[in-house]
């Protein structure tokens, strides 16, 4: 077992004929992910990699392939539509890799998807990797090996560092979930921690956070009240200069400044071991 994706995932790719879509479809197929087709409006009937049918819409793709997951590689200005389309077509798991989606679009998407009980990962995320079973995203497949550590991260390439450091120590991952760094996204730390807590294959968890927002603090709350599995963490941005603030209103809304220090304090209070640099994390769980 694992969470969200595995050998039984039947994946379609929205934007499959675009540069990024095609490149990563190739990588996912090479990894052994069960990619069963893709969508590019206007290119229905074409084929990709000689064996993957292209459809004009998610609906026709779903009807023809019975896909149960979709990954989105379309340009930012079309990403909201792609998510609405996937949700309306009844795809229960949507992974949106696209970065730069407008935040008001994302608020509409999130509020709409919540009505439909659809799971969205991302946007602006590296996607999912269940080593040895399915790579649904852009995490390089060869940097992780199967194992019992669940990884969840707001960052992209920083996650790769951690997976790579794990592999170098012979430590494997059950599933790695990149939730993305956007202010409004589909899935948060707490959602994923809950899945890991209930996943028999996952025995330990690594959480990779960064400055801004208060999702790490919420995760700490969940960990201290609900989690039985050990968690190690790293928070990026400990030395970052104060970022561009959202003005006064942002601070009022978010309650705190979202600094690394606050987050580390909250996590440590919840019994989480927090690493000084990312390559140090795996050792904290050994």
């Amino acid at each position, binding site marked *: 077992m694992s969470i969200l994706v595995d050998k039984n995932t039947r994946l379609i790719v929205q934007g499959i004929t675009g540069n990024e879509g095609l490149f990563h479809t190739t990588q996912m197929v090479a990894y052994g992910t069960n990619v069963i087709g893709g969508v590019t409006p206007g290119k229905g009937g074409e084929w990709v990699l000689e064996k993957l049918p292209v459809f004009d819409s998610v609906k026709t793709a779903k009807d023809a392939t019975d896909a149960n997951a979709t990954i989105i590689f379309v340009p930012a200005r079309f990403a909201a539509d792609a998510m609405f389309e996937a949700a309306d077509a009844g795809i229960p798991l949507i992974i949106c890799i696209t970065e730069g989606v407008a935040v008001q679009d994302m608020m509409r998407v999130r509020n709409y998807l919540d009505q439909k009980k659809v799971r969205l990962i991302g946007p602006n995320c590296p996607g999912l990797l269940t080593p040895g079973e399915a790579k649904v995203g852009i995490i390089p497949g060869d940097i992780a090996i199967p194992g019992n550590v669940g990884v969840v991260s707001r960052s992209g390439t920083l996650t*790769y*560092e951690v997976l790579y*450091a794990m592999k170098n120590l012979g430590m494997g991952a059950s599933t790695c979930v990149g939730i993305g760094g956007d202010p409004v996204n589909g899935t948060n730390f707490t959602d994923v921690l809950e899945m890991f807590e209930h996943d028999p294959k996952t025995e330990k968890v690594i959480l990779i956070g960064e400055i801004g927002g208060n999702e790490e603090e919420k995760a700490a709350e969940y960990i201290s009240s609900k989690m039985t599995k050990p968690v190690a963490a790293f928070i*990026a941005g*400990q030395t970052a200069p104060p970022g561009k603030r959202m003005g*006064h209103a942002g601070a009022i809304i978010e309650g705190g400044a979202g600094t690394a220090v606050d987050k580390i304090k909250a996590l440590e209070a919840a019994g989480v071991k927090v690493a000084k640099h990312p390559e140090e994390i795996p050792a904290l769980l050994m």
Partner: protein
Amino acid sequence: MKLHEYQSKTIFSKYGIPIPKGRVAATAQEAKQIAEELGGRVVIKAQVLVGGRGKAGGVKLAKDSAEAEQLATQILGMDIKGLPVRKVLVDEASAIDQEIYFAITNDRAAKKPVMIASAAGGVDIEEVAATSPEKIVKVHIDPLLGLREYQARDVAVAIDLPRAYWKDFVKIAMSLWQVYSGTDAILAEINPLVITKEKKLIALDGKMMIDDNALFRQLDLVEMRDTDEDAPSEIEARKYGLSFIKLDGNIGCMVNGAGLAMTSMDVIKLFGGEPANFLDVGGGAGAEKVAAGMRIILTDNNVKAVLFNIFGGITRCDEVARGILAAMNEVKPKVPMVVRLVGTNADEGRRLLENANMITAETLADAAKKSVAAAKKGK
């Protein structure tokens, strides 16, 4: 993208929110003329994209056009928190009865827009929130339904706004929602919204921030961007779609991914170095972007070493390597370069850089240590 007060208020006015009569001026002479046109007392307000200009002396009351000219001269000569004042807003002075705080912004935790209001406006609202949170009212807005009038009325009730002003307040709230949603704002703030002695509600000051990711559909607003206040290197970086922030250290960094870029800075510091910048080349960075990034880093004379930390995913290491080679050919850098390539097409990338006389590293810690050492030597 931040907008100046005068820009924000122009937008407010376009959407039907009452603002004081006034205009922006770039010279004291212009300021004088505007003051003459307005007649009576005017307020001269420094237009800088930073808070606290009032305390810094950037807002002054002039009793006539002569004083307006004199004060404008003074303010146009100021620096506020390091930013030179290039423009002043000359507004008709208002006689104020009450100051209210009113804004619409994003609540990222709730995934919804939110109205924020307080009867204790005008002053530093962040302080009010910290010391008297009960004085701050928040009402969430359904992003699919939009603001409804009763929600604005709920806010009016909650901040004890006198009943006579409810109608006008609801109108202003509905307009501010149109401002917020029509401009893809991250923040649309009126502070203060005042009740004048003449019993009118007026937006005395305004602040807006626009979502950079939505500028593709806000082309009118793009033209409002004030690049005068950005470092030239940041402007150049934006041109290439790079996320760049200049810092005070001496180790230039080029990293893919914001999280990893921050982490690379963290680790440089952990090993005793000081980063010269934050630079995220972004996902799928091609050779041209990498070359531009390198040029931008090397224009900073403080830089004594450069760290490239690229973990290929959407970004391909071979593309990055080509960018580095292209830039080196062009810029002929004199400082040592530490390179770490891992992930997608890393082997090909390393092969391309084999003959380029660069220091290579395996781990991030290793790379950070080597660049700290190289920078020390370079001093």
